[in-house]
């Protein structure tokens, strides 16, 4: 969901990259673009303003190092600030207390609390082998309690059917039951409420006092706009939140609310809801998010991406060609090499493919990254006809190509041999279904990772 934001920022970098010196003017220009990108991604205005101010302060007097342009330096700072706002690594859930550990779930109406309660219970059951009890203190919304009961029953999670009709009494009863029945964890679902509704905020504060939860999780909808700062800060003030769960990330929202909520509460985002089903739930990795927002891990990969932007269309064309069993020629090979170089070399690319670990070792000695440039030079010295029909390359042609590319005939021979091996490898990967994964990797998305 953060793809568009990342695209926008990369576009910005491209625009300012021609400039040679860091001036107040081009910093301003870059920051204006950054501001728009963040706002379009629904990061709240006060958060954006804080951000821009911090970046501006850091950017002033900053030396432009090496081959970086002022715009890139600014983007590098933006990235670092994003990482620092999002926090370090994933923070997990803290259940270290005398059982039952109580988890209180709170949030606005319709955010996804009830669904999330059961997803979290299921996650704890599987990953921590905990005995989990869930209960609903939503005595307001029609069929809210039934909803939790149904979801829990389907998931095989213990659920307490409340006998009381007041939220606070239900909370108390659930805690008593969890204690006496030896549950490790109690997760309490609560009614959706507006942060400006005084009596409802009082109610959840009372519940919190009775339960003394180890975790108080704010469930936030990833589609939330500017209002995220208002609701999150009010919930945080009332409840001392310990974490955030971001839901509905399976849509195409750019998810700026993640930044807003994190910024105003200071609490980590712990999990993501990625769909309506029980299993559509993942641990959140802040570091992955930050680099995803900008589409880069560090400024070097940024610069690389700017200078040698992977041509997705071409990559897809080649992959389609290969997977459809069409002939793979030297032009495709050259394009492939260029793309792989940009992805961090063929070794690292193949390592990322599940099930391709063996292949990677096999290839390591044969196609090493340093040879890429010479290989490309050799292919560049061929005629289009030769690239399409490598079989026609006999002795005299080899000599011409070697001279033209400043290499030796042996190297041309080696390339032609490697090319044949490459063709075989492609075939192997195609059979393993690896080509689709390779394609996914080329789009910059490592398989199985949301960010």
């Amino acid at each position, binding site marked *: 969901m953060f793809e568009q934001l990342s695209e926008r920022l990369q576009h910005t970098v491209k625009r300012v990259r021609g400039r040679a010196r860091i001036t107040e003017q081009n910093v301003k220009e870059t920051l204006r673009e950054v501001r*728009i990108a963040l*706002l*379009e*991604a*629904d990061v*709240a*205005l*006060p958060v954006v*303003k*804080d951000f821009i101010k911090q970046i501006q302060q850091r950017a002033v007097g900053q030396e432009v190092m090496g081959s970086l342009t002022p715009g890139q330096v600014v983007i590098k700072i933006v990235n670092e600030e994003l990482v620092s706002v999002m926090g370090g690594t994933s923070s997990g859930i803290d259940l270290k207390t005398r059982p039952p550990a109580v988890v209180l779930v709170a949030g*606005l*109406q*319709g*955010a*996804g609390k009830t669904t999330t309660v059961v997803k979290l219970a299921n996650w704890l059951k599987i990953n921590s082998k905990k005995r989990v009890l869930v209960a609903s203190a939503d005595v*307001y*919304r*029609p*069929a*809210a309690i*039934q*909803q939790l*009961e*149904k*979801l829990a029953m*389907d998931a095989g999670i213990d659920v307490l059917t409340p006998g009381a009709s007041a939220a606070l009494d239900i909370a108390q009863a659930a805690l008593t039951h969890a204690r006496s029945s030896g549950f490790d964890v109690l997760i309490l679902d609560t009614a959706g409420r*507006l*942060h*400006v509704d*005084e009596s409802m*905020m009082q109610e959840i504060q009372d519940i919190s006092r009775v339960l003394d939860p180890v975790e108080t999780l704010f469930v936030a*909808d990833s*589609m*939330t*706009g*500017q*209002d*995220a*700062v*208002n*609701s999150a*800060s*009010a919930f945080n*003030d*009332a409840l001392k939140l310990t974490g955030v769960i971001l839901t*509905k990330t*399976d*849509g*195409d*929202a*750019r998810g*700026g*609310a993640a930044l807003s909520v994190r910024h*105003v509460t200071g609490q980590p985002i712990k999990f993501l809801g990625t769909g*309506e089903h029980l299993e559509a739930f993942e641990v959140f990795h802040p570091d992955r998010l930050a680099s995803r927002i900008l589409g880069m891990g560090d400024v070097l990969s940024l610069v690389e991406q700017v200078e040698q932007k992977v041509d997705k269309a071409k990559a897809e064309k080649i992959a389609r060609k290969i997977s459809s069993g069409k002939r793979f020629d030297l032009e495709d090979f050259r394009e492939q090499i260029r793309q792989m170089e940009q992805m961090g070399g063929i070794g690292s690319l193949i390592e990322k493919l599940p099930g391709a670990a063996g292949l990677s070792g096999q290839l390591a000695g044969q196609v090493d990254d340093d040879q890429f440039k010479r290989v490309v030079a050799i292919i560049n010295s061929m005629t289009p006809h030769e690239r399409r029909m490598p079989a026609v390359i006999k002795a005299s042609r080899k000599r011409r190509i070697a001279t033209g590319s400043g290499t030796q005939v042996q190297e041309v021979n080696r390339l032609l041999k490697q090319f044949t091996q490459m063709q075989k490898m492609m075939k192997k990967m195609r059979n393993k279904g690896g080509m689709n994964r390779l394609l996914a990797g080329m789009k910059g998305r490592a398989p199985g990772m949301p960010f």
Partner: protein
Amino acid sequence: MGASKLHKRLSKSRLSLSRGLSQLFGATKLEDSDFDDLEDILISADVGVSVSEHIVERLRVSAKSHRISDVAALNEMIREAMVSTLEQTGAPPELSCRPYVLLVVGVNGVGKTTSAAKIANRFKQEGKSVMLAAADTFRAAALEQLQTWARRLDIPIVAQHQGADAAAVAHDALSSALSKNVDILIIDTAGRQHTHSDLMEQLRKIKRVLNKVHEGAPHEIMQVLDATTGQNALSQLRHFNDAVSVDTLCLTKLDGTAKGGIVLAISNEFQIPIRYVGTGEGFDDLQPFEARSFVDALVQEQ
């Protein structure tokens, strides 16, 4: 928590924003920074950067050309500009035939079921005969939720069971509405992310089936939008509109601090009128959309 207490806690930039407001609406002499402050107000209301910039730029130009230096006059100009944007979509359709079939759609958790109940209540109060249909056969206890509303409001409801075919429920409901000769049939559907094409296809199927049972049905497809939603609402509307052609909107949860300004961007792009706004969880918390009061709330200090 009181609004004033909340206000105190808001960050510095918000405070400077409200200072900007009092300058804008309290003081008399117009400063250049007033326009920047106005832009901030619009952005904070989810109007979106580009539409906000567009509005402010237009104002800047006309303030200059009309030699407006008076804040009150500018204030009026802003409101007029926004009201006309919202009103250019035209009025929502009349209930022209019987049974009038209203299909309620939208992404997850925006308030479809609650709004369906509120609308049913509203028509019942007007003396019309109403029927509800629970075509959300996917989400746990979704039909129990609507059934509870139907019981509370004493309105007949057609429902099957969780896991049933949603289009079959819609089919049964419309047949029943025809035979019972009701004035209006309101069909609730499951929440779906607009990016899931299979779920969008399901919605098209419901529409097709309804039209097969009774030509012209559904007469109105209403998309529910949550006022707390940011720029994504535009994408939601584009997708739903592409899939089933949306006739009207219902903007919910305006009783919080969210302003729902994204509908300005929406009105700028689509000719889809807003029929209702939701202002609470009770069945009475529904009002016909009124552009002027919406705009007043939007530029009002929080």
